[in-house]
Structures are given as C-alpha cells and as structure tokens.
C-alpha cells in the first residue's frame, strides 16, 4: 500500500520550489551548457572536423547533455533532501504515515524530472547549433530517463550522508565532475593512450555517455547492451543503499 497522495504532495512541492527559483533551477545550467558548446564545439571543432564520421560539434552534444544531467540530478536530489534535514523541517516527513517509498518517489522523482526537463531543453537548444541525428529515439529517451533517476538516487544518498554544506559539495566536486570530464564526453576512448583506455573502463560515466551517444550516431566505445546493464546495475546499487539507510534510520532517525 502506497500513500500516493503523500508522494504526489512531496513531488508537487519540490517542483514548485524549482519553479520559484527558475533562474537557478533551469536557466543557469542551460547557459553553462551553451558556453561549453561554444568553447568546445567552435574552438576545438574548427580543428578536429569529424569524429568517426560525425562532426565534432554534433559529436559532443550527447556528452554535454549527460554532463548537465549528472550534475543537475546530483545537485537537485542532494539539496532537496539535505535542506529539510538542515532546517529541521524533516521532522514532519518522518512523522507522516509514509515509508521510504513515498519519500523516494517524491524527492527523487522531482529531482529526476527537473534534470529530465533540463536535458530536453539542452538537446533542443543544441539543435540550433548543429544537425542532430537521433537514430534510436527510444534508446535515447531510455538512457536519458535512467540517468536522471540513477544519479538523482545518488544525489539523494549524498544529501542523506552529508552533515554540512561542505560535504554536500564534496562528492560532486571531487568525484562526479572528474568522472564526467574523463568519461568521454568530449572525445572517444580510443583517442586515449592504451593505459588510459583501460582506466576509463572503470569509470561508469564512460558507459553512460557511450550508450547515449550510440542512440544518436551509432558510434560507441562499448557495446550498448553493456552500457544499459551498467546503468541498471548502478541504479540497483543506489536503491539498495537507500533501502539500507531507511531500514537502519541512518542520519534520519536516532
């Protein structure tokens, strides 16, 4: 039995919060992506021309979308749950007749929705700069949605774990941003020296970007099946951690 009314309420209010801070929620990630696009696409693109038959400008679009999705999902979801913990208003959620399922649906659902919207806007915006060719729209949407969900789950975990604002920024800064930049957003893995190619295979973002890019141009660093499997595995691990957190009350209940 799920309290759908409660889940809907949390979801609605989280979305409303994003709407009230629309500049911060939607406009700024889009502006920064356009900047990346101009810098990387035009500056480097003028020298590289094509990667595996795809113009460099178009080649980096899936990577740019992923970059925005990952950082936005983590930021939205971690802040969404950290903030009520920080201000103390979480007492109300904990005393409500709901389980972690409703809390997840509400907070993670809203964070994932927000990054999904941002991803779609960025995709549409880049259509103004380059010719986008989406060979497998269903796979494309699938990867988009799964990435939003799995990284919102990760953000949720970070928001539960952090007990100050520094820690809230720590993982996005020290782990996620480097993984994304080294995840093949702006290059293919085989452009790297062999040793770094091996190292890259331990970076989960490589699988995401590769699978996502394949759904556009059928160009991939690893098989698309493996990509999908890795995303699902990552989602399952996050869910398991969250289930454990709620079961033990870790950082939520004494």
């Amino acid at each position, binding site marked *: *039995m799920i*309290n759908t*009314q*409660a889940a*809907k*309420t*949390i979801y*609605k*209010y989280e979305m*409303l919060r994003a709407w*009230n801070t629309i500049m911060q929620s939607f406009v700024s990630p889009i502006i920064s992506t356009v900047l990346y696009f101009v810098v990387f696409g035009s500056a480097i693109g003028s020298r590289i021309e094509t990667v595996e038959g795809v113009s460099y400008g178009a080649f980096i679009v899936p990577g740019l979308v992923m970059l925005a999705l990952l950082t936005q999902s983590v930021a939205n979801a971690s802040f969404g749950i950290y903030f*009520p913990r920080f*201000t*103390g*208003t979480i*007492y*109300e*959620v*904990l*005393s*409500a*007749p*709901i*389980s972690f399922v409703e809390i997840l649906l509400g907070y993670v659902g809203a964070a994932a929705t927000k990054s999904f919207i941002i991803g779609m806007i960025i995709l549409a915006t880049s259509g103004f700069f380059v010719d986008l060719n989406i060979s497998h729209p269903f796979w494309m949407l699938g990867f988009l949605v799964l990435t939003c969900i799995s990284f919102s789950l990760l953000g949720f975990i970070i928001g539960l774990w952090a007990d100050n604002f520094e820690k809230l920024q720590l993982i996005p800064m020290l782990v996620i941003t480097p993984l994304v930049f080294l995840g093949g957003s702006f290059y293919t893995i085989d452009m790297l020296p062999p040793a770094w190619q091996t190292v890259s295979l331990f970076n989960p973002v490589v699988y995401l970007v590769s699978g996502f890019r394949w759904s556009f141009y059928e160009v991939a660093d690893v098989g698309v099946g493996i990509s999908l499997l890795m995303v699902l595995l990552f989602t399952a691990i996050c869910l398991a951690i969250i289930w454990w957190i709620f079961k033990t*009350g870790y950082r939520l*209940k*004494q």
Partner: protein
Amino acid sequence: MNLPDMDTNPIISVEALSKVYGNGHRALTDITLNIHTGEILALLGPNGAGKTTLISTICGIVNPSEGSVKVSGYDIEQDYRITRAMIGLVPQELTLPSFDTVWHTVCFSRGLFGKEPDPAYLEQLLRDLSLWEKKDSAIRTLSGGMKRRVLIAKALSHQPLVLFLDEPTAGVDVELRKGMWNLVTGLKKLGVTIILTTHYIEEAEAIADRVGVIHKSELLVIDDKQALKHKLGKRQMTIELEQPIASVPHSLSGWSLELSGEGRQLVYTYDSHSEHTGISGLLDAVNSTGLLLKDVSTSQSSLEDIFISLVGTE
C-alpha cells in the same frame, strides 16, 4: 508511587519504553503510561529530562530501544501508517520552511499525511488560529508567536485525534502564554487529546487534567492534577492570634507548630489524608491556653511545591 491505571481503553499506551541514544546517552528509562481519550496531559520536567525524546518516539521520529507504544490499540512500529495518521506534532523548535507561504505549508502538511485537499477546512483552521490574514505571507516575515501557530496549523491540518505540543510556550511572554492556554482548552472541547510538555508548573496547573513528572529519563509520577496535589501535597492550617506571643506555649508542643507573622500566627503542617490530622485536638488545646483566635485558615501546597520536592531545586 504509580497506581495501576484503570483506563481499559487508552488512546495511547506506552509500555516499558526505554531509549538509549547512539552515543550511549539514556534518555528514557522504563516509561509506562496511558493517555486517556480527550484529556490534556502535561509532561512536566526540567530541561534534558527526556520529554522531547518521549514525544519523538511516539511520533516515529526516534526509534525506541525497548518497549512498545500503541495508539488506539495499533503498534507504532508495525502499524505506523495507521498510528501516525492519528497524530499531529508541534515540535519544540520553530522549524518551518521560511520561504514558503502559510497557505502552502499547511496544504503541504495535509497532503503529506495522505489527506485529500480540503480548502474549506484549512481556511477555518487558519481563521481559528488568527492566521487567515497572513495566509499569503512568507513564513519568515511572521512573529514568533505566529510561527508557533503555523506549526499548530500544520499539525492540525490532517485532523488528528491526538496533538502533541512540545513546549508550546517556552520563551513566550505572559500574554501569549494565556492565549495558548485558551487555544489548547478550546481544542480539548473539540475532542482532541492533547499532550504538552512544559517546564512551567503554572502551565500544568492552569490547563492540565493530568500531570506526569519526568526527571532524569524516568517518569516519577503521573496522576490526576487534583489527586497529585492531594496525594503528595501537604496542607497547612494557619491560626491567627489576636495578640502576638513570644513562643509556642508548652501545652501545644505535641503538634510541632511554627510561629510566624511576628508572633501572630501559628502554622500547623499536616498530611491531609492521614487518619488523624490532629486538627480538632489542636484547636481544643489552643482554646484551653486562653489565647484569643482571630481567624483560622487552611491551604494546600501547589504543584510547584510538589515538583520541587520530587526533582529538587536546580
């Protein structure tokens, strides 16, 4: 000290509840108590006694270490969806989403508890709490007293049967405190069971039906306010004399009297429910000394005296 509780159908029953926090701090020790439907129960105790921990455990915010709690017969752990829906909580701190408006946050609370929107009910609630004019104001712009009432509105937004008020008048001036008391007694009339914590004895004295005293994680006593005074309180009889005297006459030495009021008062302290209070004997004896009596009065010790005798002065 605790008489067996005769209520066979309590709205909340706490059974041998203990709480030890992760850092090893023991905040509740073997608490057993029943809360009756429709009553106002005051939990009295100094800071750090364990009042908030007790409330938080019943509301599902703190995990119990041992023991159990039932709300209307449902277990707070197994049937948490049922028990929590029956409870509203007003926390001790003014923890509110400060950028939200009053109306939004109240609607949020109702939805969070799984209730369908009911703007008419919420409007009436805000009117009753004198918050309707402020419904579109951001919470951060409200005064402390209004914020406390917003917390109450949030707690009542889902129409609970039981309302917990954790130190509703801490740091509040006398005027607002009286207002809060009126509010609480008004809610009781609507049939809401109210449990409030306080460290103001006057507060318990003014509005509670029953009083529980918590001290150093233990429930020392819980009883009817009057019964508590009767059971633990002392009575005093003051005999006013026409003429002051220098010392208690020898013939009255059997009663351990105190002389006060510059020799114009004889004060006799006695246990009000002992078989032989010794009052009539004392009055006879006073008469036979030939002292002229101006007046005789009796008084009963206040909850405050009882409280101090239980937990000591700190």
